[in-house]
């Protein structure tokens, strides 16, 4: 028996905690290699394809800059400045979300807090973990960016022999930059738990939404084309954006360092690397100290906020569900209404939809200024088509992330839902009806706004709206159908369901479907040169658009059918 009065030495057990994480990762990798080699190979090939695609894209961009060396001198640091400032904001938010779950979640952190570990060890572990989890995509983007930049650089400036040094310094810049948004994100997560523990996620979603909306409004004002002279506009825009080149911002240190490296100025580049590293260490230390010092109170408040508050059955949401799903038979209407209620109570879902389409709406309200600038040029043909592309990709993101997991989650409640007096496959119809209703309402409203702002011809306006509905149908059909064919019934985490084999298959299929439809509509748009002249598009263009819509509807129906056949047989 342990001596009850003994006071344990305050030794750091961070090394032990990190070893456990490494061991878990090793076991996970070994399991993937042994049990799912095909899936692993597919993932590796997919990543390689994405890398190649990104490399090609970056190479084209930097190659374009190389043709005009004078412009490249100005543009390349600016591109990096914008890239890293965007990364700073995005990574800070994704770190905040991941760090919140890691620090104040119910499972591992609760277990570690009952062990004789110092809060500093737990907080440091969670800081490292969330930073790695949130930032791997930057590495994914960064590697092809780095190679393309080196390959596109003038050989007289960066010789083949110098490239290894360039790659090493570039990677060092990435690694030095990543802890900064990591630390800011963790501080945000801690502050959310400490100061607004009640409905933290809702508060964060609203705060994030307000911040993004504010950023966009400010950005759109900066972009507003008050001047017809493009050079004057560009100067004005750059002047407004000059704050991102402030010497106090980390994006500027990284951009300046890389720029020096491209011009083979290693000492200057290393100076900026040193500045970035020193600041990264300092802010990491500061964040770990603050959070671990006040961790127990924040954890207590976060845990207390999970105790739940009363939520009376909302008559309003019941009435709305009755209105939206009036066409469904009663048992299916109940399932769709349940999904609507769950959706309305999950701010992660609706806030993403609101933010993404809110951004679109803000952009569309600025359409008239773009229209004036581009009237009479070929650009005007492309703008409505680009709007359709943006809406389609947002829809694909939403359905893959939030609609796809619906069937897997339902599988865990099949003991209840499976007893509904209706064929099991019909449950999928309820899921489909719910997803279709939400996506059509939001997407059609957005596209209608776009056509109004652009004063598009009625025929083309109708074509765009019909294509949007078709895409909603296809994407919802895919997400529900593939979700039923390749479900993950043992998983409750929607992110993991969406990132699994079924989710990845659904994502690829959805992107392929959207690409197919958009190629069709793109060809039809190109054939009809003047959309505002009042002339109708020719028969071939109409036929192409019609075929694209029929293809997406057929694909959606096929996916639903395959999913329903499997779902009827499945044993949970």
């Amino acid at each position: 028996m342990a001596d009850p009065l003994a006071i344990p030495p305050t030794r750091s057990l961070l090394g032990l905690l990190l070893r456990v994480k490494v061991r878990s990762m090793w076991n996970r990798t070994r399991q993937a290699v042994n049990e799912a080699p095909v899936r692993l190979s597919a993932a590796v090939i997919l990543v390689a394809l994405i890398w190649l695609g990104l490399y090609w894209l970056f190479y084209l961009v930097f190659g374009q800059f190389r043709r005009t060396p004078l412009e490249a001198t100005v543009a390349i640091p600016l591109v990096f400045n914008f890239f890293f400032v965007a990364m700073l904001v995005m990574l800070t938010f994704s770190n905040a979300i991941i760090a919140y779950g890691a620090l104040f979640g119910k499972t591992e952190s609760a277990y570690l807090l009952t062990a004789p570990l110092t809060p500093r060890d737990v907080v440091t572990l969670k800081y490292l973990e969330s930073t790695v989890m949130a930032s791997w995509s930057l590495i994914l983007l960064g590697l092809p960016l780095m190679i393309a930049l080196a390959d596109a650089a003038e050989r007289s400036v960066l010789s083949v022999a110098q490239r290894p040094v360039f790659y090493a310094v570039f990677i060092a810049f990435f690694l030095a930059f990543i802890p900064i948004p990591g630390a800011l994100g963790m501080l945000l997560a801690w502050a959310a738990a400490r100061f607004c523990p009640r409905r933290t996620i809702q508060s964060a979603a609203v705060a994030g939404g307000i911040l993004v909306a504010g950023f966009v409004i400010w950005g759109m004002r900066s972009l507003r084309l008050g001047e017809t002279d493009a050079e004057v506009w560009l100067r004005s825009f750059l002047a407004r954006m000059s704050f991102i080149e402030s010497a106090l911002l980390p994006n500027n240190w990284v951009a300046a360092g890389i720029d020096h490296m491209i011009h083979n100025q290693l000492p200057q580049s290393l100076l900026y690397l040193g500045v970035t590293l020193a600041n990264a260490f300092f802010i990491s230390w500061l964040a770990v100290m603050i959070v671990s010092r006040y961790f127990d109170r924040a954890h207590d408040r976060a845990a207390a906020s999970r105790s739940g508050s009363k939520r009376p059955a909302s008559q309003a949401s019941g009435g709305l569900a009755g209105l939206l799903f009036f066409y469904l038979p009663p048992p299916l209407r109940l399932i769709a209404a349940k999904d609507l209620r769950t959706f309305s109570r999950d701010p992660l879902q609706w806030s993403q939809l609101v933010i993404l389409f809110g951004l679109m709406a803000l952009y569309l309200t600025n359409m008239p200024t773009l229209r004036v600038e581009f009237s009479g040029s070929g650009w005007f043909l492309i703008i409505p088509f680009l709007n359709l592309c943006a809406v389609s990709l947002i829809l694909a993101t939403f359905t893959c992330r939030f609609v796809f997991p619906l069937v897997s989650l339902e599988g865990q409640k099949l003991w209840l839902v499976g007893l509904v007096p209706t064929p099991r496959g019909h449950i999928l119809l309820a899921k489909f009806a719910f997803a279709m209703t939400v996506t059509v309402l939001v997407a059609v409203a957005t596209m209608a706004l776009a056509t109004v702002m652009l004063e598009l011809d009625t025929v083309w306006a109708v074509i765009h709206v019909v294509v949007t509905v078709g895409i909603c149908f296809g994407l919802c059909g895919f997400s529900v159908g593939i979700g039923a064919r390749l479900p993950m019934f043992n998983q409750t985490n929607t992110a993991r369901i969406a990132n699994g084999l079924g989710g990845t298959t659904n994502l690829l299929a959805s992107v392929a479907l959207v690409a197919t439809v958009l190629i069709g509509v793109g060809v039809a748009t190109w054939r009809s040169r003047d959309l505002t002249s009042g002339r109708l598009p020719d028969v071939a263009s109409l036929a192409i658009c019609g075929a694209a819509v029929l293809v997406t509807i057929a694909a959606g129906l096929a996916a639903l059918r395959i999913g329903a056949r499997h779902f009827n047989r499945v044993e949970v």
Partner: protein
Amino acid sequence: MNNTDHAIALVGVTKSYGRTIAVRDLSLEVPRGKLFAFLGPNGAGKTTTIKLIVGLLRPDTGWIHVCGHEVGSNGLAAKAQLAYVPDQPFLYEKLTGREFLYFVAELYGISTRRRDSLLESLIHRLDVGEFLDQLTESYSHGMKQRVVLAAALLHEPAVLVIDEPMVGLDPRAIRVVKNLFVEHTRNGGTVFMSTHTLDIAEAVADQIGIIHRGKLIAVGTLDELRAQARRQHSLEEIFLQLTEVSDG
């Protein structure tokens, strides 16, 4: 009161979640070497009390001592004496049971030789050897519960705090766990157990506390509770009577 005399001492502890008071003015002493069964209806405040004892929650008012160490101000020393098994046991999914137990041993600074000898006995008694080298993600609830119990007993804690220990266990495992608890108290350890399984509490508990709507409504040995309820009946009837009286 000298708090070092007791394994667990709560003094005037209150904890609320917003407007809901989960635990109100709770004072309780659990002597060393005793098995204390903590009973109460659903939502009575049992799990909140346990989380307060193990330091996962902070009391709004009052103090909590474990083996004389105040949990709020001297948490590390208190936690070194504790082992906690929650109702939903935590295991690293991508570790094997054996890897997890080795991790726990290192966490509590147990030497390799001591760890191996303790583990051999626990593996045998809890009958976990068959699946100990599989990843824990493949375990059933009962298997997880047995491995977590082994982890909790591995460092020979002075105080074992356990929330619903018998859920998911088969009758044979329940018998083994009951014996382990009794043995732990005979060796000078203390067990603080919350449960809904009244016959187990009746069979093994030295002391029983009943909490209802956040208030401790009865505490004592089974005979003392019988006297309080003025009945010579089973713990189940005493429990129902006391909670009904409290409602009334």
